[in-house]
């Protein structure tokens, strides 16, 4: 019997990329995981060699060569293919996907186009004063959580990096920080806050506008301290602005409650502008609470390779960028793609039904370690070794810090990178012959 203990393992579930996991392996099977949340544990315990998705073409078992050849046939015969996903795989696989997209004159997009993509666009417009999670842990004495519920979506964030963490200049941890939660309902996260401001849905833009005005000491015509702004008295917003100005090191952690609500990218532009303006009084930063573990890496790699972070289109032979036109959801709704590579994501679980229905009507190649809701109807299904468990590679944490993921156990299948490379070689052969 071979038993090994792996320390400082990086969890590949959410954008927190907790890097202190301990994984116990016995005979190439993961037996125990410590220092992990329930979601991370389930992911690691479930993504093992005996749970792999089937290798199939049109519902029939096949060889890897058959699957690669069919994938290459579908993609070379398509006039407008899309490569979509990449948020739960390595930066190396992302880079290979961009090369395949360029070779095919395809569109390429990742889930950020409908999650934190509005925040990415806002950063292009107004920039972002930001910091690392290490700085939040060691310095932040005011944390504002806006439209995010990390206790449910990033369960170890508070303990590892933010609200509860003890840091160099915050040795008392939670007692050394003020925490404000802004949300449309009480949550597990808001229960950890000193102040909870329950706002009306869709009022974020208006609220941030008022906060910026208060920060600049502008007179708000027609408003008194009792006037409600987003369902909360103006006096409370005034108190928040004073707290922000009085803090030594403030951070806004924002979630998809802001990016997916009315205003979308404009909400984020506004809040990043507020953060920038607060730097006239103190040190203030913003960090997006990125969801999928390497969705940030997808944006990073697309920017290196094409100049654009999401919704990139090579149909004319060169990269074009236009969110809303080349975003995966809009392209599917408008029926503008005729074949799809789905990799390291599950659009059938994430996208509205009309897009999924169209996806079901076109040839689809699925590359994913385990079965998901696309597996039953994808034309080609290729299982892969999961990143951070069966293959190594680079992921980008929500604060843009790259971390190297380890290989822990062997899998009887290739990595995402190897699959994309093999398909690319075959597409290249077809195009050159």
């Amino acid at each position, binding site marked *: 019997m071979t038993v090994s203990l792996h320390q400082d393992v990086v969890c590949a579930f959410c954008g927190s990329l907790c890097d202190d996991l301990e994984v116990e392996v016995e005979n190439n099977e993961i037996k125990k995981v410590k220092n992990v949340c329930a*979601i991370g544990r389930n992911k690691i315990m479930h993504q093992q060699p005996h749970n792999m998705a089937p290798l199939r073409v049109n519902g029939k078992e096949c060889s890897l060569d058959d699957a690669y050849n069919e994938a290459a046939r579908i993609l070379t015969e398509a006039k407008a293919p899309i490569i979509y996903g990449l948020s739960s795989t390595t930066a190396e696989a992302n880079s290979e996907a961009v090369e395949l997209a360029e070779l095919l004159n395809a569109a390429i997009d990742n889930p950020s186009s409908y999650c934190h993509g509005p925040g990415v666009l806002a950063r292009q417009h107004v920039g972002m004063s930001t910091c690392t999670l290490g700085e939040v842990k060691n310095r932040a004495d005011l944390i504002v959580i806006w439209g995010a519920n990390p206790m449910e979506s990033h369960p170890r964030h508070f303990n590892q990096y933010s609200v509860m963490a003890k840091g160099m200049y915050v040795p008392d941890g939670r007692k050394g920080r003020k925490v404000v939660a802004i949300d449309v309902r009480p949550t597990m996260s808001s229960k950890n806050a000193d102040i909870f401001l329950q706002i009306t849905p869709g009022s974020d833009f208006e609220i941030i506008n008022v906060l910026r005005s208060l920060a600049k000491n502008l007179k708000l015509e027609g408003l008194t301290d009792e006037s409600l702004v987003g369902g909360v008295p103006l006096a409370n917003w005034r108190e928040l602005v004073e707290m922000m100005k009085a803090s030594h090191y403030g951070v806004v952690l924002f979630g998809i409650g802001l990016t997916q609500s009315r205003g979308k990218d404009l909400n984020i532009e506004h809040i990043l502008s507020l953060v920038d303006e607060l730097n006239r009084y103190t040190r203030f930063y913003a960090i997006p609470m990125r969801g999928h573990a390497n969705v940030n890496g997808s944006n990073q790699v697309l920017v290196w390779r094409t100049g654009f972070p999401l919704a990139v289109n090579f149909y004319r032979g060169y990269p074009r960028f236009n969110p809303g036109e080349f975003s995966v959801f809009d392209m599917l709704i408008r029926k503008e793609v005729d074949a799809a590579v789905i990799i390291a994501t599950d659009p059938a679980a994430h996208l509205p039904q009309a897009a999924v229905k169209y996806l079901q009507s076109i040839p689809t190649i699925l590359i994913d370690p385990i*079965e998901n809701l696309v597996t039953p109807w994808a034309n080609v299904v290729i299982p892969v070794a999961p990143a951070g468990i069966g293959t190594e590679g680079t992921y980008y944490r929500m604060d843009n810090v790259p971390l190297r993921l380890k290989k822990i156990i062997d899998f009887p299948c290739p990595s995402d990178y190897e699959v994309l490379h093999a398909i690319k070689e075959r597409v290249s052969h077809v195009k050159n012959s």
Partner: protein
Amino acid sequence: MNSIEGLLITVRTGRQGAAMEKGKFSAEYIKEISTLVINPEDFSSLGLGSEKKAILKSHSAEITVTCQSVEGPKGIFFLPLGPLANMVIDGETNGTGVPNYKGIPVSVTAVK
């Protein structure tokens, strides 16, 4: 049958995340993604049957959900992200690339 109108907001939950990673065909995942969280007063006014089932209807579709009473604002309903919630979201993004996952006008009607 009692019915109320309001706004649907799709959300992440810890249970949804944990169940999803065990498998999206698991009973645990399906149960979580079909659990609609509503305000206690709204919950009472619906007069739900013993199984707490209700029809959630939007402009796009109608789905069957199981209601759960949790502290929160009146007239706002919360459903975990997933294939069920995706049925009631329409195809409009207003040119942003982002569907309207939050703030969808819906009605909730008790199933007796």
